[in-house]
C-alpha cells in the first residue's frame, strides 16, 4: 500500500558535515500491517517517518502511496493519506484552542476548508461520545483550552483526533517516549485499541525494545541508515529481548534501547 523504493537521504550534502541518514532503504508496507521500527540514536528512524510524511523530499528513490508517486508532494497534500503523532505531546494539538475546536479541525483532515462554522452542532454529541471512551473525564470539558490538559491527556486526545477521519497510514514517532511510565503504558494501550478497532495500518518508531517486540506484526531494526533486521509473523511473536541483545548487542551499543 505504501512503498519506499531505494530511498536515500543525505543531510548537509556537499559540506564537511555531510551525513548519509538513509542509505538505500526499500520498505513495502502492506494494508493492515503494524510495523515497529527500532534503532539507536541516529539510525534514521525519524528520518524515515519524515520522508514518508513529506517533511522533506529524499535525495534518491521514490515513495508511493496506493501506487501513486508522492515523492515530492508537500506535507499538507499528503495529509489525507497520513496521520502522524509526535514524541512531544504538545505537538499534536493547538494549545490555545478548545478541545472541541481541535477535534473539529481533525474532522476535516485533508479536506478543503471554507467559511462554514468550524464546529457543527451535530458533531458535538459525537465528540462527547468518543471522549468518553478515553475515560479521562474530557467529555465534560469540550470548551476547555487544550493548554489546561496534561501531556498524557493531550497525547490521548491526539490519538482520538486520528480516528475522526481515518488515515490510510498512521505514523507514530516515539509517541510515548516523553511521558511518565504509567501514562506511557495507558497511551500505548489506547494506541493498540485504536489501531486494532479501526484496522489501521501503522508504523511506530520506538526507542524501547520491549515495546517494539510486544506490539505489531513486524519489526524492523535500523542501523546507520540501513535495514539491519526485518522480522515478521510467527518469528516476530516468538522474539525476546534477550535474543535480540545476543544477536545485535555488540553493534547497538545503546543502553536505552535494551532496557
Amino acid at each position: 500500500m505504501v512503498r519506499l523504493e531505494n530511498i536515500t537521504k543525505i543531510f548537509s550534502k556537499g559540506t564537511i558535515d555531510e551525513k548519509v541518514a538513509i542509505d538505500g532503504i526499500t520498505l513495502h508496507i502492506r494494508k493492515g500491517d503494524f510495523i515497529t521500527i527500532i534503532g539507536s540514536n541516529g539510525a534514521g528512524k525519524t528520518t524515515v517517518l519524515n520522508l514518508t510524511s513529506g517533511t522533506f523530499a529524499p535525495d534518491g528513490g521514490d515513495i508511493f502511496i496506493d501506487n501513486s508517486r508522492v515523492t515530492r508532494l508537500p506535507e499538507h497534500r499528503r495529509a489525507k493519506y497520513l496521520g502522524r503523532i509526535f514524541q512531544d505531546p504538545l505537538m499534536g494539538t493547538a494549545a490555545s484552542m478548545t478541545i472541541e475546536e481541535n477535534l473539529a479541525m481533525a474532522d476535516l483532515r485533508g479536506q478543503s476548508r471554507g467559511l462554514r462554522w468550524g464546529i457543527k452542532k451535530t458533531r458535538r454529541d459525537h465528540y462527547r461520545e468518543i471522549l468518553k471512551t478515553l475515560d479521562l473525564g474530557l467529555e465534560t470539558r469540550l470548551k476547555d483550552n487544550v493548554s489546561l490538559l496534561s501531556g498524557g491527556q493531550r497525547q490521548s486526545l491526539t490519538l482520538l483526533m486520528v480516528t475522526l477521519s481515518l488515515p490510510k497510514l498512521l505514523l507514530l514517532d516515539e509517541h510515548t517516549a516523553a511521558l511518565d511510565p504509567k501514562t506511557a503504558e495507558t497511551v500505548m494501550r489506547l494506541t493498540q485499541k485504536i489501531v486494532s478497532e479501526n484496522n489501521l495500518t501503522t508504523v511506530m518508531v520506538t526507542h524501547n525494545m520491549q515495546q517494539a517486540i510486544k506490539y505489531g506484526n513486524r519489526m524492523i531494526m535500523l542501523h546507520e541508515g540501513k535495514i539491519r533486521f526485518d522480522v515478521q509473523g510467527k518469528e516476530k511473536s516468538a522474539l525476546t529481548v534477550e535474543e535480540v541483545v545476543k544477536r545485535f548487542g555488540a553493534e547497538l551499543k545503546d543502553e536505552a534501547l535494551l532496557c
Partner: protein
Amino acid sequence: MLLSSLLRTIPISLEQGLAYGLVALGIVITFRILAFPDLTVDGSFPLGAAVVARLIMEGVPPVFGILMAIIFGFLAGCCTGLLNTKLKINSLLAGILMMTILYSVNLRIMGRSNIQLLTVNTLLTPLENLDINRFIPIIAFFFLVAFGIKFLTDMFLHTQLGFAMRATGDNEQMIRTLGVNTDNMTVLGLGISNGFVALSGALVSQDQGFSDVGMGIGMIVAGLASIIIGEALFGKKTVQRMTLAAIVGSFIYKLIISLGLRLGLAPTDLKMATGAMVILALGIPALKKEKEGKLHLRGV
C-alpha cells in the same frame, strides 16, 4: 483638576481610540493569532490614507475610496506574507521591507507628501454637519465600524478557515499534518490584518482632515501598547476577548496619551512615552523572572 481633565478628554479619546482600534485589531490578527510580527502596519496605515485622499481629490465617492484603501492594504499585507513564505525572508525584515517600499508608493499615490481634506466632502462630512455636538454622530459612527469589524473578525475566526488560521499561529506542524497549507494561511491573515489597518488610515485621514506620508510612524508600537493595555483588562483566553481588548485598549491608550498631553507631556515626546510603556509591559515579567509574558512568534 485631574478628574475634570479626564472627563474633558474622554470624547476625543473615544473618537480616536475607536478609529485607531482597527489598527490594534489588525495587530491582534498578526501578532496574536498568526504569531507573525508584522511591521507592514507603519506603511499600510498611511497607504489607506493616501489612497482615499487621492481618490476623493479625483472626485471619487468616499465610500468607493475606502473600499479601494482596504484592497490596497490587503494586497500590501499579502506581499509581506509572500516575501516571508515564498522567498523565505525573515518575518521582521519582510515587514520592514514592505514598510519602506510603501513610503515611496504612498508618495507616488498622493503625488506630494500630504493632501488636505478639510475643504472637500468626505464620508464624515454629513455627520459633521448635523445640528448636534459633532462628537455624538462621529463617535457613534466609529463605534459601529470598530465593533462591526470586531464581530466579523470573531465570526471569521470561528469558521473552518478561521480555525486553520488560528492553528497556523499556534501549532504550524500540527495543522499542516491535517492538510492545511500554512503558507496560504499566513498570506491571507497578513492581508486581512493590513486591510483593517488601511481602513483605519482611510477613516482617520478623513476624520482629521488630511493625509500625510508620515502619519504611520510608530503605529505598530502604539497598536502593541493598546493590545497590552487591553489584555491586562480582559486577558487573551478567547478570540472575543482578544478583539475586545484591542478596541478598549486602544481607547484607554488614547485616554492616557491625551491626559498626559494635558498634564504637560510634550507632543514631541509622545512616541518615546509609548515606547517606554511597551518596554515596561513586556519587560516587567522578565524582571520578575516569569515565563508567561514572552511573545510566541514565528519566522524570526
